[in-house]
């Protein structure tokens, strides 16, 4: 393989394909570097993520997609020895400023993980967990309403409405993942982060989730990490390509896939590595 092209320009400069139709910016990152102990996992990532649309992060394994995603709701704080430099803002407010309460931040920025991780509780309690701890519902009736609305939005209501008291872990993989999405929606977030939400699912469940993402993008800013370029092409409006900790290229999905400007992007989407 010929990697000479990669060397043509400084690796950490991002090719940004301009996009006049982009929605207003919801999340903005500038020069974000992340270190795990001594090891640097992200190099000077700068990106604008628009609201009410789906942004996909793609790239080979270990390139830092998850790492960057987890910076946005500060989940990286929970790993010992992680250090983040640079600036990330949500609606213009720096999320790393000391006065900010991560509890509030994480309520506003929901997250769905690669492996469905429902709590070992009933379906109802899974969804009600967030509203309860944040005090979003007054009384049982209101809570019931929130749970129902969230499950409906996640397209799960009809399948589970008769067994809300069954354990969430008893559902199939795809249902569990939708339950996790319902759980995230229930606290009424503004941004939803999804880290390879379908990679543990079968094709049919994957399709259901993709439809769901499509519906949700009307109200939320959604960021999805995926290892499947086809999935990125299907669900996202914008795509960012990461490689070895660098954000190589970002722009409208259409452009990135059909007309990549960086050789690395090109090699990746044509399957020459990864």
């Amino acid at each position: 393989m010929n990697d000479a092209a990669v060397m043509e320009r400084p690796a950490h400069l991002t090719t940004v394909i301009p996009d006049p139709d982009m929605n207003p910016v919801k999340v903005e990152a500038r020069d974000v570097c992340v270190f795990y102990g001594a090891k640097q996992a992200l190099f000077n990532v700068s990106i604008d993520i628009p609201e009410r649309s789906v942004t996909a992060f793609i790239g080979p394994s270990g390139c830092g997609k998850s790492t960057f995603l987890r910076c946005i709701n500060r989940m990286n704080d929970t790993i010992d020895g992680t250090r983040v430099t640079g600036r990330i803002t949500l609606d213009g407010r720096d999320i790393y400023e000391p006065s900010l309460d991560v509890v509030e931040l994480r309520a506003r920025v929901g997250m769905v993980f690669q492996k469905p991780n429902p709590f070992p509780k009933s379906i109802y309690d899974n969804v009600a967990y967030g509203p309860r701890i944040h005090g979003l519902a007054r009384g049982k009736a209101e809570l019931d309403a929130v749970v129902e609305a969230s499950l409906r939005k996640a397209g799960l209501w009809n399948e589970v409405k008769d067994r809300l008291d069954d354990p969430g872990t008893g559902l199939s993989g795809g249902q569990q993942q939708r339950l996790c999405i319902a759980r995230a929606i229930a606290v009424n977030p503004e941004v939803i982060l999804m880290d390879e939400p379908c990679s543990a699912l079968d094709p049919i469940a994957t399709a259901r989730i993709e439809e769901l993402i499509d519906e949700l993008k009307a109200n939320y800013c959604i960021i999805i990490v995926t290892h499947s370029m086809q999935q990125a092409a299907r669900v996202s409006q914008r795509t960012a390509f990461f490689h070895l900790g660098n954000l190589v290229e970002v722009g409208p999905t259409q452009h990135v896939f059909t007309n990549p400007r960086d050789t690395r992007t090109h090699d990746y989407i044509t399957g020459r590595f990864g």
Partner: protein
Amino acid sequence: MAGYAFILILFMSLLAFYIGRSAGNRFHVAAGRDTHSLPGYHGAFVAVWVGIPVLVLVLLWLGLQRPVIDQLLIASLPDAMTAGADRAQLSLYISEIRNVASGRIFAEPTEAIRIAANSLVRWEALARWAMLVVAMAVMLVALIIARSRLTPRFRARNAVERVLSGLMIFCSLVAILTTLGIIVSLLYEAWQFFRLVPVTEFLFGLRWEPQIAIRADQVAGQGAFGAVPVFTGTLLIATIAMLVATPIGIFTAIYLVEYANERTRKMVKPVMEILAGVPTVVYGFFAVLVVAPAVRQTGSLVGLEISPNSALTAGAVMGIMIIPFISSLSDDALKAVPRAMRDGSLALGATRGETVTKVLLPAALPGIMGGILLALSRAIGETMIVVMAAGLIASLTFNPLDSVTTVTVQIVTLLIGDTEFDSPKTLAAFALGLVLFAVTLCLNVIALRIVQKYREQYE
């Protein structure tokens, strides 16, 4: 001489190995890749067959030599000495003969003894040489047979590995044999006991006064063997121990798993391990000399009357002993909850405390419960602390300020120093041991099942 035998066996095995290996080497040169096993395996095969059977033989020989010679010695003594002598007298003779034979003469031995001592010296020498000769013969035969089986396609490796597997299976059986040994010996003695004291009285009787008169004219306990007060006492102390240890242990685990940074963990964990490693006899002293007076003084300050052997003291100190046990098991259980649960909760904006109490603890509960049950069985079986700090008198009470006794205390006091195996008092110890074993067995099996199920759930 036994030493020489072992050296000889070692030497012969090495020789056998060498012979086998050179054969293997020759096959290898001749047949190349068609040889099944490496030369070393051919060597090991021959060595195993030369070494192991003879080793068993020599050990048996050594075990039997002495009793056989003793029999011969007694037969050689004049009838006048042996007639009417009981076993004890005979063994005294043997003992004297052996002393004389080894040159420890302090009283003038009789002629018969002197002659016997001389024959003893002769026979022993004979037996030793006989053993060497027999061992040598067996090894040579084995060597010839084993060597003759070697061929290039001979699966020497498989043969050696089969022997190894056999040895390993035998070793795994040791655990089973131990359990069987425990059960059989306890059952046997307990059965003797139950012939003297009905099972129902033992299990449901309310009075326990086992320190019966050991002579007809002594007045002591009247020999009541109703173990209920002993059981309740055990339960009382174990409960107190659990009440002390459970919260401390669980909170410690929570802190270490969820809040502490790496440095604190690295410091606290070894110290907790020291707490776990302190011998229980030390805790016993601690209970008697430090905790008991302190408890009593505190009690008298608030006007409470506390027995010097109060269940509270014994239980509390036992609780201290168990803390590290519970904390490390809870630690394991909390850690076994997949990180995804924690992440899921934190990502919803829960605080660490909420994550612990609402998600992790409920999820880890089976594991923690299993740990607590295991700890409870520890508490029930713990001996030295209660031997020193709990009472000897079995009173039927649930007042933690009173003195109670436990199963293990009774076992020790009934058995120490006194090794007679036929008084109900001694046998009662085995009956108690049986109950103790049965109860801890049940607890352990339940607890282990719970823990295992729990682990599997997240595998």
